């Protein structure tokens, strides 16, 4: 659960004063809070931990890290949820 996964911001909106983005991780898209990374905008890559972006990274870094996590088989468990997906 302590993994931080890089993904690409596809869109962003403000809901109840909170900046939320749709962030793409390979084939998976998740709603992600962008409040901690005001410098990141649509098209940027961010490192996401439990649904919150904690830093902005460049594309190359994002792709390398993603490949690594996927190769270790750690992504599936990380996105596990049995509360309705966002």
């Amino acid at each position, binding site marked *: *659960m*302590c*993994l*931080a996964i890089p993904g690409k911001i596809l869109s962003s909106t403000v809901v*109840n004063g*909170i900046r939320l983005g749709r962030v793409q991780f*390979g084939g998976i898209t*998740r*709603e992600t*809070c962008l*409040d*901690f*990374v*005001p410098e990141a905008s649509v098209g940027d890559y961010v*490192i996401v*931990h*439990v*649904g*919150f972006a*904690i*830093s902005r*990274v*460049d594309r190359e*870094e994002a*792709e*390398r*890290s*993603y*490949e*690594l996590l996927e*190769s*270790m088989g*750690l992504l599936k*468990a*990380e*996105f*596990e*949820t*049995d*509360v*309705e997906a*966002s």
Partner: protein
Amino acid sequence: MKYLDEYRDEKIARGIVAELGRRATRPWVLMEICGGQTHTLMRYGIDEILPAGIELVHGPGCPVCVTSLETIDKAIEIASRPDVTLVSYGDMLRVPGSRIDLFHVKASGGDVRVVYSPTEALKFARANPGRKVVFFAVGFETTAPANAMAVWQAKREGLKNFSMLASHVLVPPAIRALLSSRRNRVQGFIGPGHVCTVMGYREYEDLIREFHVPIVVGGFEPLDLLEAILMLVTQLEEGRAGVENQYVRSVTYEGNRLAQKVMAEVFEVCDRKWRGMGGIPESGLSLREEYAEFDADRIFGTEGVTADEPAECISAEVLQGLKKPTECSAFGTRCTPENPLGAPMVSSEGACAAYYQYRRHGMVAAKDIH
């Protein structure tokens, strides 16, 4: 998605290992704190390609692993109530409590659910006002801002059916506890890259002044870790002890100030009992008095729950880098990821699980697994 250029990476890796061999004139014991880093080290066999004498021991940086037995028991007690939905990160369900785990509660009809993010717990609480929704919140500094944000939002919205069983832990006090131990062998630390993404690495300077031990904040890729190891060995060989940042792609000196702000708004530092390590002063975060109405421990009266750890499991020594998982008599036999005795075998970030997954069975023959 672009694939890794394995050859180039391997060539660089070999180059770093060769450089390590040239610089290391004596044995050194290094510890990676973070369980994610342990996984990369095992997956790529980095511990096996290092020059003889450079030993890696694995630290307590798996939040699931260090959550105290009594906290698990509290979660089990709360989850067993018919009016409660207990929501947690997936790994927590399989961590054994004193008698049962949360999966047993679920199997017996308890409402226990897994979420990926604390915001999902909030959504569930909003949609189910008739349920008391308790978020079982564990984690290091990486996770605390997200969990803090959930409570902050709940207060702002006046959500009455949401609370948190909080068991957050902090890395620097754990390093201090390890270094203060008379049994300590660790001479240099690979700092946790994502914890430091949030917190920066200013607070690690105090540790260095106190203990004169080098700390290099490291990333999670094989080359990141090899480079961090090289930076540590270079400092050790030159007799230096400083904080250096290998993971500059994500970590700054100050860290993420916005994340730190919401953490400080909702949580305060408290003493915390760690599974395997015992009580460590000022090593946890608990809800501030202003957020007491969201404190599940108070709401459900579980503050007095205590528990003793099972005798056979050596996770205490594993988490302190004193023993390797394969030195445990139960490793791979009576303790497996399917039937874990201790938490480091449960979590995908636990050192025992990493050894098991990547077949570091040693004398426990591979035939037993198939």
